[in-house]
């Protein structure tokens, strides 16, 4: 039974990584600051899941879950900061 769970996690990880790379493609495909920011937001959540998954595959779960917590908080803070920059006159939000 353990073997099955192991391979299930690995296939699950491959699936999530494919989804994240698709989001990366989307990030570069369309222009505009706000559309690209959506790509970053979704990739950030995917990476949190990837981290926890690697923890479960690797066996050393505590370490990876801690990293996932740090990444979740940092992802949120970065989205607030980007919004602040875009909001102020400096950002402007234009791409060219």
């Amino acid at each position, binding site marked *: *039974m353990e073997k*099955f*769970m192991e391979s*299930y996690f690995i296939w*699950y990880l491959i*699936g*999530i990584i494919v*989804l994240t790379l*698709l*989001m990366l493609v*989307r990030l570069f495909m369309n*222009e*505009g*600051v*706000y*559309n690209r*920011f*959506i*790509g970053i*937001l*979704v990739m950030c*959540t*995917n990476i*949190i*899941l990837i981290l*926890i998954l690697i923890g*479960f595959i690797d066996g050393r*779960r*505590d370490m990876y*879950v*801690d990293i*996932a*917590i740090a990444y*979740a*908080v940092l*992802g*949120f803070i970065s*989205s*607030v900061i*980007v*919004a602040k920059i*875009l*909001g102020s006159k400096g950002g402007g*939000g*234009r*791409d060219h």
Partner: protein
Amino acid sequence: MIIRDVMTVIFLSLGFICFFITTVGVFRLKDFYARLHAAGICESAGLVLCSIGFLIYEGFSATGLKIFAVFMAVFIASPIGTHIIIRVAFKQSMRERENAGSAAGSPAGTAEKEVQ
């Protein structure tokens, strides 16, 4: 033991479906706000289901509590982040509409400018 694994597989697969829906949503939806709504699905629904799956597999232990902490952090933080971004984008499009409106002299009902 078997029940634990079966439950984990069920919840994780549901979580994966949510992440897949998000990716399809961000690719297919036209408007900026609809796309951001799709991004919101993955953060709340996807992580909830995956966290439940991991908690079941992990059992009640320190790591389980940490996974619950991750889930709570994202569950509280993601709506706030999405709200801030929508507010800024909306103000930006409002500002552009006023500039476009006053410059071109067209009435206020100009076409909804797509948020870049």
